[in-house]
């Protein structure tokens, strides 16, 4: 047996909170009062605090969720691929309505935002096993088999990677031939400082979408005098329409793990944590297997790669359904077993992160890229890109196109080329980098995709996804789906994001009803701008991005949606409903 690191540093028990809650959730289908009381006693905290944590994550329930808990994705891509029919099919077949459990307690139906399978929608998770490309017949078949007692894990789908485009072998970064540990062998000769120099030379920037220079994070953490440091991999890929990390972890988990080990060596950490979103439970065993393989070879554990004194191990922490936990400080709070509320930014995570120790947090793609950089050299990495935008970029393409899937594009590719590659069908509205990104019209298709020019707005700076919508799609419906998503996922800690997303959703509902005029549209934009300027974390700051850009770019479309006769009065005002309370009181 490989030697496991003797635990020099013991993570406090509270960090096990989410794991414990998952255990109850999966064993009993919900977290009952006894479990809650037990946890409060175990961790020495109050019951209300445990309750607060449970209610923050939408995969944790305080009521039974049925023997088979079904989470159907209600993101916009699912919606255009027939969400409504699937929803009805599930309700018809199981006898439960969404949000509830059927009478026998067998099936629980719930909705959840994007589960990272946008290329094979409509998709659902049954007991967290994936079922993709659903249609009414398939749903009927699944449910009848479950009723016969077949286990969901035995009939679930294995989501395919759908890697649609890879540059020529020597230019590919992520999907080139992978050999476990090739990069790790170079660690010792480079040395920690050498690795950071190499990453600096490669100009790698954070691939989660913020494009912060990776070497700066690593260097800053390395400089911190601390007894303990952490490497955290952000695999909480919550942005609707994004699934690149899913593909990387499904087929190239070793690359991610390698990247984390390299980072750990460079900054002097002994513990790495992969924060994997709850939607990806089905990937967990795969990553575990990869970790075990690394341990057996001696890439994890003590004296890794025969480097004396370099001890490092990685564990997986499952998230539990919270988009905001992709925000790095919220992720840290979640890792510590708390409500995933973003921290007040007194310190950067590189100064005080997980458990107040210096922590590097990078996205899955960033760690994979870092590993490849050490393997292929910074120069080769840069050469595969264009000046200012090194390497290649993974883009998740979904929506109205023939070939949804992952595209490893060369930076500098234009939107038109990408649309051509994926076989986009009559594209009209394109959502770049998910709901928190920006929307572009097909008229802008000659813009390049790169890391540059965020402010000049010449190039498109893409965090990782393209959702393509054709002319038949209802833009208001798309925006409404986004705002409903943000309203649901806002942590609620700061005023603008809590109230702003609520207002925007209400306003868009009125727009959908035609009860809107130009003044309303400008008002909507001002609510959005205000939320953008005043929110505390990235969620609120970006939640109105697509709305604001859509109002500017699709102005005519909105104008066409106004009710011509609308004179500012609410024509659809329901007098009977409005006075119902009064009538009741009167009688």
């Amino acid at each position, binding site marked *: 047996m490989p030697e496991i690191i003797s635990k020099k540093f013991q993570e406090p028990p509270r960090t096990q909170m989410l794991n414990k809650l998952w255990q109850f959730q999966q064993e009993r289908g919900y977290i009952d009062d006894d479990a809650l009381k037990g946890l409060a006693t175990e961790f020495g905290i109050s019951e209300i605090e445990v309750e607060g944590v449970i209610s923050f994550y939408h995969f944790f329930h305080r009521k039974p969720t049925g023997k088979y808990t079904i989470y159907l994705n209600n993101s916009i891509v699912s919606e255009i691929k027939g969400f409504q029919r699937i929803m009805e099919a599930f309700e018809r077949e199981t006898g439960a309505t969404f949000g509830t459990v059927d009478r026998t307690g067998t099936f629980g139906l719930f909705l959840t935002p994007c589960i990272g399978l946008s290329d094979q929608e409509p998709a659902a998770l049954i007991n967290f096993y994936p079922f993709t490309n659903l249609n009414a017949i398939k749903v009927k078949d699944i449910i009848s088999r479950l009723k016969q007692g077949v286990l969901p894990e035995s009939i679930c789908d294995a989501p395919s990677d759908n890697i649609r485009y890879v540059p020529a072998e020597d230019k590919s970064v992520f999907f080139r031939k992978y050999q476990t540990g090739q990069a790790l062998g170079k660690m010792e000769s480079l040395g920690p400082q050498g690795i950071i120099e190499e990453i600096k030379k490669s100009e790698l920037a954070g691939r989660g979408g913020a494009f912060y220079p990776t070497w700066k994070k690593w260097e800053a953490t390395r400089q911190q005098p601390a007894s303990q440091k952490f490497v955290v991999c952000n695999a909480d890929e919550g942005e609707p329409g994004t699934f690149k990390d899913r593909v990387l972890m499904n087929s190239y988990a070793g690359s991610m793990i390698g990247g984390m080990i390299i980072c750990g060596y460079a900054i002097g950490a002994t513990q790495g944590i992969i924060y994997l979103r709850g939607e990806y439970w089905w990937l967990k065993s795969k990553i575990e297997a990869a970790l075990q393989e690394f341990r057996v070879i001696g890439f994890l554990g003590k004296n890794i790669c025969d480097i004396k004194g370099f001890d490092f191990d990685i564990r997986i922490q499952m998230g539990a359904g919270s988009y905001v936990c992709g925000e790095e400080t919220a992720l840290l709070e979640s890792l510590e077993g708390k409500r995933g509320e973003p921290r007040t930014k007194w310190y950067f995570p590189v100064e005080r992160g997980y458990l107040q120790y210096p922590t590097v947090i990078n996205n899955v793609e960033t760690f994979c890229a870092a590993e490849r950089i050490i393997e292929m050299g910074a120069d080769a990495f840069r050469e595969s890109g264009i000046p200012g935008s090194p390497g290649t970029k993974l883009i998740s393409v979904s929506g109205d196109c023939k070939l949804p899937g992952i595209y490893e594009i060369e930076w500098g590719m234009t939107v038109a080329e990408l649309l051509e590659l994926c076989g986009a069908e009559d594209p009209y509205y394109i959502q770049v980098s998910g709901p928190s990104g920006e929307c572009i019209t097909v008229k802008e298709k000659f813009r390049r995709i790169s890391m540059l020019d965020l402010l000049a707005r010449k190039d498109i700076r893409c965090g990782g996804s393209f959702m393509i919508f054709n002319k038949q799609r209802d833009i208001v419906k798309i925006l409404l789906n986004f705002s409903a998503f943000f309203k649901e996922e806002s942590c609620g800690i700061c005023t*603008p994001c*809590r109230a702003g997303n609520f207002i925007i959703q209400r306003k868009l509902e009125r727009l959908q009803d035609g009860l809107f005029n130009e003044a309303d549209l400008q008002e909507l934009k001002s609510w959005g701008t205000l939320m953008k*300027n005043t929110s505390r974390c990235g969620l609120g700051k970006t939640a109105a991005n697509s709305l604001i850009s859509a109002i500017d770019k699709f102005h005519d479309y909105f104008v066409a949606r106004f009710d011509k006769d609308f004179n500012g009065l609410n024509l659809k005002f329901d007098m009977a409903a409005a006075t119902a309370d009064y009538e009741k009181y009167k009688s």
Partner: protein
Amino acid sequence: MIKVTIDGIELEVEEGTTIMNAARKIGGEVVPPAMCYYTSLKGSGGKCRACLVKVAQGSAKDPRPMPKLVASCCTNVQDGMVVLNSTSPEVLETRRGIVEFLLVNHPLDCPICDQAGECELQNFAFDHGLQKTRSEFHRREFDPIDIGPHIKLHMTRCILCYRCTMVADQLTEERVHGVLWRGEASEISTYIQKAVENDFSGNMIDVCPVGALTDRHFRFRNRVWFLNPMDAHRNCSKCSGKVVLWMRGEEVYRVTARKDQYDEVKEFICNECRWDHYDTKDWVVEGPRAVEKWSVITANKYSKETVELPEQLFSKLDNAKWDSFEGVT
């Protein structure tokens, strides 16, 4: 010591001071409003966004302005920082927006709310808000619940500043008060409405900026502007015993802790002082409390000037003479 300029006023503060606290050293218009920050509660601040200010110059070393408005309660000043608060139209405009956001789910039930007259949100909206609203949607509603025999929680009015949960966490030992759910559905809740049986739980009422937590013994009994706040103290083994008696005639309507000009309590009081001593005989009355001149509480009573009379005068006054202070302007 480092130099910072706020609204054109230069001052020196210690390193590690927040913009908010630097501004409070100057006082007056320069001080940003705060709905969630509370000096004595660790971890408060950064939530309400009422205190956002513009940083026109980051520091002497790096003079670039900060790209977005920053929360002054949780941003430390840098040497050579230039901050704009009431002199920045952008800040004032934004603050109007924050008032709107806060009122999206806050009922305008001030006429029947016990907090009216000493409500931080009311003052904030009066100072910084518009007179009209653009939100015409249903506000969330909750039934009021009792937290033990003394406190009423009216969640409908809550603006989720989290102060009360911090009191529960930091002043009282047993935490039964916390935040549930998330986003727009967030609510403050008491676990199974269990009574908050702790000697300092009453302070949750004092830290609440709005009328979400009110004193059950005081509810609907009087308006704060009809009462005379009197500084008083008693020997208490649990707390400082320094309180304010809210009186009308001879009767003590309620007892609260003393708040400073930023509506903050510096010395928290125990529940015994708050609820068990409604008799003036139990107290050594120091005299009328200084109340900011603009406050509605001064209405038809006395002004700050009155209070500047020699202190000895007040301590010598006997109970019967308090009434004569009514009407002094």
